[in-house]
């Protein structure tokens, strides 16, 4: 499995497309950091931002928003820009294409499987590599604001257990949920073996459920409950948490787990006996 990952890393870093995707990813991240949620350029229009700690009722509805002034600096930047991570599911799509879908599109998977590499090994190597890539991109999302904030405003504080715990509370669940959605992309890649199908289904799955539920809510409020099961919205919930995890964390984590388990089991069931064209 290690050989597959090593070889894939060698391959993808010899592709112009990956450098373009990385450049776009970094550019968007920098722009998202430099332009706040309000669309104001940091350092020109504002030098601080107000975030809200959310107080929830027992039923999960928002009770109160407590304004928390956060000074713009490297230390606090990850809290201010935690809400940009919900874009990660889109920015990660080119990497799923380069790592998995291209193998099927080019037919190169034939050479891999006919050389004695088991399908299970191949399948889990791809999942492992995508976990590594997701974690790396998430790390960029975490550290880039810290670096830019520090360059522009200084670090402005100290690192302690509380700080690390707060960061982990926001970013780890987001990584988990982003990877859960990446697993859906991997499932689609193994099921349809086509770049076009991956791009279409991946993007549609991120948008359609919310749109359909929104239409259903117009007819009956009850359908609002279904929004809890939309992973893209769960990622957003965490990204907007502003320093404290929402009370439905276990539910969100469970949903992510279900997405992952179904994608992995479904993917392996389809792939283990699939015809390789």
């Amino acid at each position: 499995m290690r050989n597959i990952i090593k070889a894939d890393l060698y391959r993808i870093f010899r592709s112009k497309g990956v450098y373009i995707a990385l450049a776009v990813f970094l550019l968007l991240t920098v722009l998202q950091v430099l332009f706040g949620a309000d669309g104001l350029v940091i350092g020109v229009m504002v030098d601080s931002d107000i975030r809200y700690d959310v107080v929830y009722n027992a039923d999960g509805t928002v009770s109160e928003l407590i304004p928390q002034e956060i000074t713009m600096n490297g230390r606090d930047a990850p809290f201010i820009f935690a809400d940009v991570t919900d874009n990660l599911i889109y920015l990660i799509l080119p990497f799923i294409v380069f790592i998995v879908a291209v193998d099927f599109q080019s037919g190169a998977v034939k050479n891999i499987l006919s050389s004695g590499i088991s399908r299970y090994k191949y399948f889990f190597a791809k999942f492992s590599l995508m976990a590594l890539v997701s974690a790396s991109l998430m790390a960029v999302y975490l550290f880039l604001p810290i670096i830019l904030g520090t360059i522009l405003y200084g670090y402005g504080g100290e690192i302690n257990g509380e700080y690390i715990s707060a960061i982990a509370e926001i970013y780890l669940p987001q990584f988990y949920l982003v990877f859960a959605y990446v697993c859906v992309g991997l499932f689609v890649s193994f099921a349809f073996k086509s770049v076009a199908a991956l791009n279409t289904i991946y993007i549609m799955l991120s948008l359609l459920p919310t749109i359909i539920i929104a239409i259903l809510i117009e007819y009956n409020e009850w359908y609002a409950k279904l929004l809890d099961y939309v992973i893209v919205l769960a990622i957003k919930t965490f990204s907007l948490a502003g320093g404290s995890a929402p009370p439905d964390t276990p539910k969100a984590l469970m949903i992510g787990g279900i997405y992952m388990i179904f994608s992995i089991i479904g993917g392996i069931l389809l792939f283990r006996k699939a015809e390789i064209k």
Partner: protein
Amino acid sequence: MSQIVLQTHSISKHYGTTCAVDNVNIVIKKGDIYGLIGRNGAGKTTLIRMITALTFASSGELSLFGQTSASGLNAARCRMGSVVEIPALYPHLSARQNLEYYRKLRGIPNKSAVDEALTAVNLMDTDKKKFRNFSLGMKQRLGLALALLSNPDFIILDEPTNGLDPMGIVEMREMIKRLRTDRGITFMISSHILSELSLIATRYGIIHDGKMIKELTDAELREKCQRCLSIKVDDTKKAAVVLETVLNTTMYKVLSNNEIRLYDYFDNIAEVPLALNTHGVRVSALTEINDNLEDYFMSLIEAVTPANGGKKDA
């Protein structure tokens, strides 16, 4: 006894109600160049795809280097190289980068393996040219280089001369012969062109409508397809004496039904009945038989094909 590299036991593949490969038994021994011949859709590629793990048999058993279990077969496939259908490599990588990728993937520690494989197929001078810009001939050669990368004992090539120009076909043929002689590699090569395979293969399997209709050695095929004179005589013993003593040839075979097959004297056919008659052998018929490979192949196919034609396309 020669070591058996590949053996199938009643292997079959069904797609719904269509039987693409039907109870095929083949044995490939070490050192063979096994030519798998059949028309398009005969089941050649399906059989190869089962051997190379790209599809799974519906029934039957496959044995590769004596391994039959799933894990054993995967281990055995490490000793095998293959190019199935059109060589498929990463289009954005050069020849060297593609091979380097597969070297890493297969955990081949010898870094010079890439250069050795490229040298073997004369692709050392392609530099940074991307695979997508290769001609079909170059792609076929790179496919062979990929098959050679892990220094395999057995190589499977599916229609390796497809799309090659005449020069490319000769080069590919010479390469295969050289690899067999120099490295002792066993080959299985599929083609629908018997005359092309006949220049390199040592054994043949003829497949039609998913069934293996004939397996034969190169010598057997040559015999079947050899040009000869069929001479019907009243006394074959006497005729044999005349052929050896008067016409000074031993290139004949006595068959039943008072028939002798003579593989000589094509330049002077008239001399043969004259000599026989002069020495008291009565010739009742003389026919020149000139079955070429294609004729032989077609006669085999026709023999197993129902009068209303083929039954399906696999």
